[in-house]
């Protein structure tokens, strides 16, 4: 019988960038077009069968934007990785990348940071270039990928990158 490991990861980013939608797509495999703002913390669990162990990935979807406070930052404690999300159609959501990266590193200095440019399905409305995102992610010492919670594009990849950060 494989060992069961529970690990915590966090989703961070400005409001309405699609954090909850990404989680829902990954955990439940569904997408809802309606926007419902998250308050507080939404914790979801996804069981992943790895080669030598079973991983219960606990995904902390935290409130974004102006409602992310000092008390929100303490909820990052114990996370092995964070997915920091921006909305590719709203350039102002990119401003939060640095802030959230700093918040995460202040609590968990060794945590892996993965940056996601979400809503990549809205090709005609995209206002942030891939190059810019690559540069910023590199500066913040993280990896970058485009995602779409709507189509599911690279959603699995983003979460698996986080899951692979576990040292056992």
């Amino acid at each position: 019988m494989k060992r069961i490991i529970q690990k915590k990861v966090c989703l961070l980013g400005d409001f309405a960038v699609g954090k909850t939608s990404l989680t829902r797509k990954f955990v439940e495999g569904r997408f809802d077009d309606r926007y419902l703002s998250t308050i507080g913390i939404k914790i979801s669990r996804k069981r992943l069968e790895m080669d030598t162990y079973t991983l219960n990935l606990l995904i902390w979807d935290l409130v974004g934007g102006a409602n992310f406070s000092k008390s929100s930052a303490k909820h990052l404690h114990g996370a092995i990785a964070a997915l920091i999300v921006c909305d590719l159609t709203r350039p102002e959501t990119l401003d939060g990348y640095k802030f959230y990266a700093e918040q995460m590193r202040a609590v968990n200095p060794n945590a892996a940071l993965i940056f996601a440019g979400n809503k990549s399905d809205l090709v005609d409305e995209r206002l942030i270039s891939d190059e810019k995102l690559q540069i910023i992610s590199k500066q913040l010492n993280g990896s970058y990928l485009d995602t779409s919670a709507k189509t599911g594009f690279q959603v699995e990849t983003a979460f698996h990158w986080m899951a692979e950060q576990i040292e056992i």
Partner: protein
Amino acid sequence: MTTPSPAEFTPAMLAASATNVMVMAHRIAYAQINSDLMVVQTSSNFSMVVEQQDTTIIGQPITALLWEFVGAEELLQDVLHGRSPSCHLEQINRGKTDDKQVYLDFLVVPLNKQHLDQGLLLLIEDRTKSSRLQQTIIQDRNESRLLQHQIARVNKELRRLNQLKSLFLFISAHDLRTPLTSINGYATLVSKRLPTAVDPSIIRYLEVIISESNRMGHLINNFINLDHVEQGGLTLQPEVCDLNSVIEEVVNVVEFDINNRHIVLDIETPDSPMRLWADRDKLFYIVYNLLNNALQRTPQNRRILVQAGVANETVWLQIQNDGNGITEERLKSIFNLYYHQTKATTRSRREGSELSLYMVKMLVNAHQGDVEASSKHGKGSVFTVILPQALDGK
């Protein structure tokens, strides 16, 4: 397990029962956690917040019962060793569907501050009611912000498109004007040099070329002026003008069309000057557009009446045509440019004059004047302009 009779209740059992009643009433659950972070005692309703409700609770690690504490072990140890007064996880969302969302607050404090080794007390409070209210407020605020972003983005795009339109208009209007001037000029020249015994159809063809090129020139001017006005570039250079002389000037310009279409033009104006404080070019444009509009609306061999006068420190101008009139619905929005854009399904000779009516209103209003239209279906229409009279030199 049998329920004890009231006589069998011990004071400890009664106290525990009273606590449970209070706990249920305040939508609170609790658990006592020992120094190994194992649950040792709970309120009766604690099982309701445990994810796997069929599991044994007592003796289980808190992290196995509540996912929320996975990763928070260090924080709990801090409370247990007095390094931190509490560990507070606020507004934990529970529930898979959005409409059945439950919000819980988890507060962990030492059971006894003086004796930390007694373990921790976990209090779970159901804050669904207040949190849902807060969620609604934040939802509204976030939606409003998203809308503002969208409006700002659309406005930016509209400004860009408007600039592009102006540039396109400027280039095409100037490129169109040059050949049009040549067509009109040479056609006029040819019409004046025709031999007397020429085929009448040739004269007719030339008249059509001149008339249509005039109309096209007029249309181009309107497009340029409209763009100029929409870009906020309407400036007046007022001076004292005599409306009589402006009417005379306009009549000279449209005379060719009037004669060509056998329209009777009657002018009834006072002999004395009708002095206005106006931009002469714009005033010419107003009178020209109104007369041209009347021409478009008047069938051949019918009459146009131009009247003007001075009354109550204003100068009025009225242009009446014998056309088919304007429907009531159309009359309401006759000076509205966007009405014409959305409603004009048929492209007629009047197309250009509808744009010019919008321009007339803009220019009359810029002169602190007013313009109105009245009509009876089948009995023609009347356009009336009222402008301030020039007094004491102005």
